[in-house]
């Protein structure tokens, strides 16, 4: 194993001069991810290192942490982040293709995932030359980002795992990255000894968990996520006027045909609706199969700022199942 002495400045320089592989990834399809209970908020320009280290790529799908245990997240508590950047450096003397995929899921108030498995939000093959940066996804910058939403800031990321495996064309040697911890001390980059990054500008969360609920869809008939059926004026969510968007994550245990309807309205200063009834802002067939993770934005485009929502689901066929939902309000 060979070692290379590298300062942070030198590392940044390499990131800038070696944007190899970006073109391959510009078509990568990734979407917004899940939400986590751990919610710390930082302003849009806040940057924090969530993970850094080395990963040995071989023929197995493994997390960046190196494990092959599919239930373990690579990073978690990522709700405050509207995108993640993954930048790397391929070591060795030969070109290498690395298959990568990004998985995500939402957790309940206790940090327990709503269901088993993960929601795949992106996959790609990274092709690099040796000693080249491994960027991900963005044509405007050498750095990759997850997810590539345009102008919309949506901090509803959640537990996130990245897997990768490679098809080695030749041997790839591991090489540690070192940085100057102080004027006289060199340190290997590791989880315990990360590159120095200043954490600042911590602010209250812009996203709140509004609802975590299991809806019994064994009976048929329209009901809201809280199970109410005979009270059409009852909102599922109230006092939501501060949220520009709601993100509905759900894990459906069954694949039976199910429709959904999202109703909304506004209230006066006392919290009373301006009138009875609702405005239908979305409806359709609930996407997803059995044991699948899914995500819906409310509204699908534009901003919301409604005060009350009633979210209805109706199993219209097949076998009964439980629908496990989490709704995050994004300010």
């Amino acid at each position: 194993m060979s070692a290379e002495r590298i300062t942070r400045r030198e590392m940044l320089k390499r990131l800038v001069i070696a944007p190899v592989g970006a073109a391959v990834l510009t078509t990568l399809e990734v979407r917004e991810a899940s939400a986590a209970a751990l919610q710390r908020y930082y302003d849009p320009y806040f940057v924090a290192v969530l993970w850094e280290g080395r990963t040995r790529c071989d023929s197995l799908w493994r997390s960046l942490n190196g494990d092959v245990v599919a239930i373990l997240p690579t990073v978690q508590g990522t709700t405050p982040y509207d995108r993640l950047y993954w930048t790397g450096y391929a070591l060795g003397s030969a070109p290498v293709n690395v298959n990568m995929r990004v998985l995500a899921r939402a957790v309940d108030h206790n940090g327990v995932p709503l269901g088993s498995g993960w929601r795949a939000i992106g996959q790609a093959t990274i092709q690099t030359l040796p000693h080249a940066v491994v960027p991900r996804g963005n044509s405007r910058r050498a750095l990759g980002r997850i997810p590539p939403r345009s102008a919309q800031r949506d901090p509803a990321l959640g537990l996130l795992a990245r897997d990768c495996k490679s098809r080695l064309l030749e041997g790839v040697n591991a090489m540690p990255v070192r940085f100057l911890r102080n004027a006289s001390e060199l340190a290997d980059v590791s989880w315990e000894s990360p590159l120095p990054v200043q954490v600042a500008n911590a602010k209250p969360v812009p996203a709140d968990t509004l609802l975590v609920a299991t809806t019994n869809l064994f009976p048929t008939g329209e009901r809201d996520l809280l199970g109410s059926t005979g009270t059409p004026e009852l909102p599922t969510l109230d006092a939501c006027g501060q949220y520009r968007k709601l993100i509905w994550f759900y894990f459906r245990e069954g694949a039976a045909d199910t429709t959904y309807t999202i109703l909304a309205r506004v209230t006066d200063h006392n919290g009373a609706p301006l009138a009875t009834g609702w405005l239908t802002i979305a409806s359709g067939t609930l996407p997803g199969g059995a044991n699948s993770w899914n995500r819906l934005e409310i509204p699908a485009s534009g901003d919301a700022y409604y005060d009350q929502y009633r979210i209805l689901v109706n199993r219209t066929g097949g076998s009964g199942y439980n629908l496990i939902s989490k709704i995050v309000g994004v300010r």
Partner: protein
Amino acid sequence: VRTQPLTLYVGTLQVEATPKDVLNQAEPLAPTFVNAERCRAFYWTGVKGSDAPIAYTIRAGNINGWQWSASGQITGNARGWFRVVIKPPAPYDRYRFEVSGAPQTLHSKITGAEEVAE
């Protein structure tokens, strides 16, 4: 820069053929809102009183007069909910939300999305 919602108006208006703003002002130069430069969008949600459509005009400007306007119709059944989203092309100090149409009651709320420096 972030935006935060601000409730600007909640009220009831008797719509008539004569144009007037949601504050019941018939004077065409009278603004409905002032000091609204930080509002980047307006979300106007409410309930119509009858099946007849309501014509609306949004005017924006400053103390020197109106400089931008947008018009449309609010359609829908009696007691039906509606929403109109207004995104002016530039910041303006004053806005006028004007309606006219067949007589009916209009319950509505206007929320402004205000730009807030971090």
